[in-house]
């Protein structure tokens, strides 16, 4: 079914703001988030007081302590920190990361629950600890069937899917280099990126240390201190904004109807569910992959770029290794992809790169990364079956 908004109420983006991503920043996460949000408000040409809706994916990392203002910035903290006097609606998403927060804000805006929604993501990576450093000596719940075998976080789970993919389709793992280097190359044009000014080479990628074979170091995004924010409003209010764009045409999320595998979902179940996700997205927007000028797919672990290129029908099943070439994905290529560097190039803000760059490309504010004449953008965020996506348009 097509998603329809009341006349004049199509949700859209009017501002993007960032605080640069760093491996470690000697600042509080509150100040980092404040910088991103105030930059977004300035970019939108509104006053802080006009924000009357807030939507966030606040979840801290496993290595965080969950201390509000230090390593997690929930909506409640943000509203208090900014002293927002007019908030009528807010939301804390706990699934599908920041794209789901955008979808919730779009719904609230279209319904009139708020007029100007702030959507943000802030993450803190503490110095001196390993990103995933599980000190467990016992494991309960479902973990009792996995952790005692040395199987931990999301990376190893991705490694299982990736090895299955490589054997099923006879693909060489080295072919992923093109998509990974595309991200790192685009990050060289994004001064907010953690990898800005530090471009890696094909040799760096292919010779990096092994984490979980067949995955090497640069198949993982890098955890960072950083924050990003967007301001959304409705079409009628956006007319006076300096550079509105990214009118939401449709959205969808991954259904969970097939997670029959139990301990870990199979690549095949993920494929089928994500195929449903993609079809529902296209149907909701009345658009298809052939209409998409700028493509942003989640890349917290690099192999999921390939699978989503296929499930979202940019190429056929098993064809991504041949399809996802450097030439095709480049800013001046046939299918510009993760144009600000994605998670891999910008740093691990859980899809904020994808959302912010989708907004910028459709607002026309992507600067040296701007894809000339781009009319339609697709943004998908979330690993495994945690996907949420939206399509938006320039006009």
């Amino acid at each position, binding site marked *: 079914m097509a998603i329809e908004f009341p006349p004049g109420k199509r949700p859209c983006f009017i501002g993007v703001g960032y605080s640069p991503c760093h491996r470690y920043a000697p600042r509080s996460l509150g100040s980092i988030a404040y910088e991103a949000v105030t930059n977004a408000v300035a970019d939108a040409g509104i006053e802080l007081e006009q924000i009357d809706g807030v939507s966030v994916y606040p979840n801290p990392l496993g290595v965080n302590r969950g201390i509000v203002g230090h390593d997690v910035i929930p909506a409640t903290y943000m509203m208090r920190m900014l002293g927002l006097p007019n908030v009528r609606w807010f939301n804390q998403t706990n699934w599908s990361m920041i794209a789901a927060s955008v979808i919730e804000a779009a719904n609230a805006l279209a319904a009139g629950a708020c007029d100007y929604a702030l959507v943000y993501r802030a993450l803190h990576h503490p110095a001196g600890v*390993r*990103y*995933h*450093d*599980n*000190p*467990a*000596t*016992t*494991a*309960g*719940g*479902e973990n*009792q*069937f*996995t*952790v*005692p*075998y*040395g*199987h*931990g*976080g999301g*990376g*190893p789970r991705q*490694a*299982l*899917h*990736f*090895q*299955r993919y490589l*054997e*099923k389709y006879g693909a060489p793992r*080295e072919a992923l280099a093109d998509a990974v280097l595309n991200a790192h190359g685009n990050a060289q044009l994004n001064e907010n990126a953690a990898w800005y000014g530090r471009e890696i080479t094909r040799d760096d990628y*292919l*010779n*990096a*240390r*092994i*984490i*979980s*074979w*067949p*995955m*090497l170091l640069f198949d993982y995004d890098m955890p960072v201190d950083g924050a990003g924010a967007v301001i959304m409003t409705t079409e009628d209010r956006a007319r006076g904004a300096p550079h509105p764009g990214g009118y939401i045409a449709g959205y969808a999320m991954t259904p969970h109807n097939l997670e*029959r*595998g*139990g*301990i*870990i979902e*199979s*690549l095949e*179940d993920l494929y089928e569910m994500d195929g449903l996700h993609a079809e529902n997205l296209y149907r909701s927007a009345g658009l298809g992959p052939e209409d998409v000028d700028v493509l942003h797919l989640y890349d917290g672990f690099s192999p999921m770029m390939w699978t989503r290129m296929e499930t979202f029908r940019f190429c056929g099943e098993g064809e991504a290794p041949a399809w996802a070439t450097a030439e095709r994905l480049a800013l001046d290529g046939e299918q510009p992809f993760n144009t600000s560097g994605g998670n891999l190039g910008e740093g691990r803000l859980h899809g904020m790169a994808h959302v912010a760059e989708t907004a910028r490309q459709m607002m026309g504010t992507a600067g040296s990364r701007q894809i000339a004449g781009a009319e339609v953008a697709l943004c998908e965020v979330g690993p495994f079956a945690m996907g949420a996506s939206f399509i938006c348009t320039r006009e």
Partner: protein
Amino acid sequence: MVSRPSGRKETMAPYGVLPAPDELSEPYWEAARREALAIQQCRGCLRFHHPPVYFCTNCHDEAAELAFADVSGRGTVYSYYIHEDSDIRAFGEKTPYPVVMVELEEQAGLFVLANLLDCEYGEIAAGMPVEVVFERASEEIVFPQFRPARAGSAG
């Protein structure tokens, strides 16, 4: 260009992380103590569930008994990886080690996770037949593990 780590594990002992059995999982670990692989099964629709569930998500019959049944312990490698930089502290000294996702023969899509023992890492491949073996970790805990299936294994 780096290549697949080489190696072979005869054992994963000593085990640094032990399960904390609960009311749902206790029969699984009880079976392992007697060197049997038991998987929870709905006695109504005969669907296997792993990890075990409180309510059959297949037939939804609240009256159907959920009980553990011994399975053959045979299956095939669905997928795997070789962990070189473990995210679990207790495994820091054990790297590189293989983690396999085994599809049990009793039901399509019925997966258990384990380490593959007695197999050169270079020989692990999706589809290879494997069989369960058991390793004692403590007084209370015995771990089901897998090794390549041996010709003539009782079946």
